[in-house]
């Protein structure tokens, strides 16, 4: 990565990387690196984990509007019996895309936004372990998301959208029963998203294991870091499983393989097992980041440390583990044998135990605290309250015999919206409010924030609360209409109206972003300071917005909540008092001698190549082959990209006063001063190429 000699003085310029001198040494002529850190180009080619995080967040919010609009269509269609707003065919596409979009293009990337932005900061690192790969993960995600979403439009409105439900049970997704391109979009799209998440998981795991600042032992890491780490491990091990399933499906559809061909003796339950071996860990992938966020917010606004830190970490690990042993609770009626059902039923129930530990520890953190109900706190407490509802209905599903009554009804729909919306999404929104000042330098407006929270919460409860009743009254899910004499009209109407209340709340959030930004600009961009909430984690120990180099110098961590303990100490009476003003402790972002990775063209180029291969697989294998060639070429481009600008050789240190390393640079070696500048790429083709083989 480039080691550009940066000489920046004014704090407001910290994000501006001055254009370096022209590249003097071009190993293979063409492969220079992009320059500059301003303008839209700098976003396309950035490798900065913070910008990547912000882009993940923005993309997720965009897709949230798409998925939400789909949800509103679902609700409109179901508002009255015999609804005819959208026909059955479109409806099937709409709810499938709603589920897929919300799970893979909203909650997961939102969590990725926080993981990217915060993980390195929370462990006190400069960046993630592999910044270029990180950028690639994002573009690859965006390629997958665009491919999937484009299915709504190509060949006519919802003509080629996936329509097999988000878990796409075979054999309904076979070519025979689903001849449109929809399922191909589903399989290829998820495969691409899987590559993105897998690469990112490896990257973040290495970051946490390897990039911690001195003194940051595992049990000094914030709970959010822990939860994100566990999430990455779940991704690491769960994604290959759905990769296998999707490959089998693609082979069936593209090349007439027999994996789900019942006529050839296949057993469709294979798909279900593979999907849910992935799918259940997946739901914890959705919720654990939110649990982490809640564990950051509640202590801050209770002005107490998190209660039972070690138990919070342990219960997170326990959830991660147990999540692997419960998948067949989605298959209680599929015809798996009674012993399996019994085993999975019982194992599922006990997941309530570690989850309960979390809920109760949050409550204990609030107990006798000084609670300030800021917007983030509202969201966090909202999670505690709403997730519990969803969790409890989850436990009632785990009672296998009664799940035979509940499964595939709106009672399930209620369950998972309570845990996903009421848990994951509220948590992530809380995170937006909480870390917004960190990322952008100003707070979102509290008034609008609270109003939007309450509107959302009320809308949410009246949308999904009634679904419990509907489900128990026998309303099945995924039905495009219901008969008038089935008695579902009332609560469906309530749910539909309320879903528009949620939409209002969501719009208020966006309005809040707009208003707050405008007001901040009008007020002459006042500085919120590094630590606007009086918080505890390392990310608050540097300027807001975080300068490109994160920290001016390494932080030597000596305990959990290091930053907080630097701010506050005890007097001789054991009373807590301020030890030093925040401004003295926090870095001001003025150290400019930190060497940062240079931007790179290749991550986005590779992302484009993947998009090409994706469409190629769906429409024309020659295109896919061309895309593959392009990809391989880009991988070599990536490898041969100069590690940095040789003229700037030298300053590897992050201490501005230490220039001792000038002599080590070897401008003639391809790798540049950073020594083994190429080895990075050596193992990358393994992932990238393999991913594109299909």
């Amino acid at each position, binding site marked *: 990565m480039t080691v550009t000699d940066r000489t920046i003085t004014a704090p407001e310029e910290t994000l501006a990387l001055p254009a370096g001198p022209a590249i003097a040494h071009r190993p293979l002529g063409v492969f220079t690196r992009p320059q500059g850190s301003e303008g839209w180009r700098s976003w396309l080619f950035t490798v900065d984990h913070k910008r990547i995080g912000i882009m993940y967040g923005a993309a997720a919010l965009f897709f949230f509007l798409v998925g939400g609009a789909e949800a509103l269509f679902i609700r409109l269609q179901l508002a009255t019996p015999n609804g005819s707003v959208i026909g059955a065919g479109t409806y099937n596409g709409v709810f499938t895309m709603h589920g897929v979009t919300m799970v893979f293009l909203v909650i997961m990337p939102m969590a990725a936004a926080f993981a990217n932005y915060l993980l390195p900061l929370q462990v006190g690192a400069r960046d993630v372990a592999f910044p270029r790969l990180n950028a690639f993960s994002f573009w690859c995600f965006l390629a997958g998301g665009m491919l999937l979403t484009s299915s709504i439009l190509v060949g006519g409105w919802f003509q080629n959208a996936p329509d097999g439900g988000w878990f796409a049970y075979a054999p309904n997704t076979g070519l025979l029963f689903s001849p449109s391109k929809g399922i191909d979009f589903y399989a290829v799209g998820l495969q691409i998203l899987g590559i993105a998440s897998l690469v990112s998981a490896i990257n973040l795991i290495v970051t946490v294991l390897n990039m911690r600042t001195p003194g940051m032992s595992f049990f000094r890491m914030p709970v959010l870091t822990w939860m994100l780490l566990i999430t990455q491990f779940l991704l690491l091990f769960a994604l290959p499983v759905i990769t296998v399933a999707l490959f089998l499906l693609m082979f069936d559809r593209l090349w007439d393989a027999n994996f789900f061909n019942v006529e050839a003796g296949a057993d*469709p339950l294979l798909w279900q097992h593979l999907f849910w071996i992935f799918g259940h860990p997946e739901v914890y992938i959705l919720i654990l980041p939110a649990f982490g966020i809640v564990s950051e917010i509640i202590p801050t606004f209770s002005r*107490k440390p998190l209660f039972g830190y070690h138990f919070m970490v342990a219960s997170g690990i326990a959830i991660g583990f147990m999540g692997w042993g419960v998948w067949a609770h989605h298959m209680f009626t599929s015809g798996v044998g009674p012993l399996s059902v019994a085993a999975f039923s019982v194992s599922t129930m006990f997941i309530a135990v570690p989850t309960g530990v979390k809920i109760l520890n949050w409550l204990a953190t609030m107990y006798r605290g000084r609670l300030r109900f800021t917007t983030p706190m509202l969201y966090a407490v909202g999670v505690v*309250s709403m997730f519990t509802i969803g969790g409890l209905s989850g436990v009632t599903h785990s*009672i296998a015999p009664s799940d035979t009554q509940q499964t595939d009804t709106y009672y399930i729909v209620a369950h998972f919206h309570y845990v996903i919306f009421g848990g994951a999404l509220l948590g992530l929104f809380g995170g937006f409010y909480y870390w917004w000042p960190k990322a952008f330098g100003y707070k979102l407006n509290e008034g609008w924030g609270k109003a939007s929270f309450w509107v959302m919460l009320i809308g949410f409860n009246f949308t999904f609360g009634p679904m419990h009743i509907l489900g128990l009254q026998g309303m099945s899910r995924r039905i495009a209409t219901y008969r008038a004499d089935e008695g579902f009209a009332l609560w469906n109407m309530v749910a539909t109206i309320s879903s528009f209340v949620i939409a209002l709340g969501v719009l208020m959030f966006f309005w809040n972003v707009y208003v707050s930004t405008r007001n901040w600009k009008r007020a002459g961009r006042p500085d919120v300071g590094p630590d606007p909430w009086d918080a505890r984690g390392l990310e608050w120990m540097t300027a807001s917005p975080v300068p490109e180099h994160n920290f001016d110098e390494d932080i030597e961590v000596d305990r959990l909540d290091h930053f907080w303990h630097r701010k506050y100490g005890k007097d001789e009476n054991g009373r807590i008092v301020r030890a030093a003003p925040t401004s003295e402790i926090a870095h001001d972002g003025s150290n400019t001698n930190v060497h940062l990775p240079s931007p790179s063209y290749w991550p986005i180029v590779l992302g484009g190549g993947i998009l090409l291969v994706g469409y190629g697989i769906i429409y024309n294998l020659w295109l896919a082959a061309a895309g593959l060639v392009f990809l391989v070429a880009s991988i070599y481009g990536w490898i041969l990209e100069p590690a940095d600008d040789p003229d700037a050789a030298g300053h590897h240190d992050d201490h501005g006063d230490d220039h001792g390393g000038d002599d080590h640079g070897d401008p003639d070696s391809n790798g540049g001063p950073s020594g083994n500048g190429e080895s990075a790429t050596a193992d990358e083709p393994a992932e990238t190429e393999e991913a594109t083989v299909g």
Partner: protein
Amino acid sequence: MSKRLKALVWLTSLLITAGTVVLIVVSIVVTDDHPLSTLSPVGRQGRDIAELINPIFIVAGVVFFLVQGAVLALWWRYRVAGSDSGDGEFGYYDDDEFPEQTHGNNRLEIAWTIVPTVLLAVISVFTLVALFALDDVKASDEDVVVTVIGQQWWWEYQYHLDGNTDSPPDFVTANELVIPVGVDIALDIKSRDVIHSFWIPKLNGKRDAVPGRSHDWVIQADEPGRFRGQCTEFCGLSHGYMKMVAVALPTAEFAQWRDNQITSADIPQEGTPAGDGWATFSQQCANCHVINGVTSAANRGGDPESAPDSWDIYGEFNGPSAGTYTDELVAGAAPNLTHLMTRGTFAGSAFDLYLNAGDHVPYLNLADQATLNRSELEAWIYNAPERKPADADDLRGMPARTGLSPTDIDNVVAFLSTLD
């Protein structure tokens, strides 16, 4: 937050609380009929399930109130007053505002690990007992076994009166599963194409119909009645319209119904409307629909000597090269219409065949007791996919017959009306 906003928020919450109460009251007073409700079981299995889950609902309710109560109490008790002022400094604490800094309490942690564990252990014991009891699906009281075959988007029932599913069924019907009251009826659930799920909520939970597999299930009804059902595994385009009904008849009536079903239909007299309808039917419909005694295998393009329809949808699997059930796995099959008029609903029970046949009209002799839902039936015959989305080109669902004139359709309906 500004004063006005605050007032607004309070007002809305008040309105909403009031609204909820009104709504719940309305929903209770206007006792909507819920024919698919899982909360009012009528069969043994359904009751066992309800008895298992109801106490668990109560436990969950208690946990619910404890947690929500705790949230509200903590909120009320420990909030810092005035903490919602809208100024920019919001969120800062004064330097002396410190509560006691508790880090944790191992005994508490252990307590709230063990208590739920014990609670769940108890629940799991009841669950397992119920599970294995319910799984004991070998029906013994009656020998009738019904092979239930799901396909896009209707149900076929093959009655094996002697309980032997290896031999051809005694008769075949569709969408309305008739059973004697009070006895366990064994079901053998299969599928001809994709996965479906058989579910009569008032009688028992659901069981998936998975192609290539056959699943045992059992239903029983305590009292006579018509119990609605719905296919609950997403099965493509018309999944939402794939419903069914279970009809429980007193033993004597069931016997009467059964004896009628075994009989074949008669070819109507030529020259009558029904006779003309029969002619049209033979040309336009009989290549898919079987009417015992009226259509023959020849109608279906098969060998007239061979069995009229292939009841054994998979048989022993002998590999694709043996060519066993290749043709049967995309449904391509259509409901057996021999006794169409004895059913209360048609086309995956999505439509009523009779206008005033509520769930309670005596089920036998429907044709005499209720009025035929003629317009719906005619519309169906004329353009089925318009009434219920289908994909007949791919052998899924019934094709449109828009070439038929109104008289043709009248005649066909006249013919169909003889099928009781």
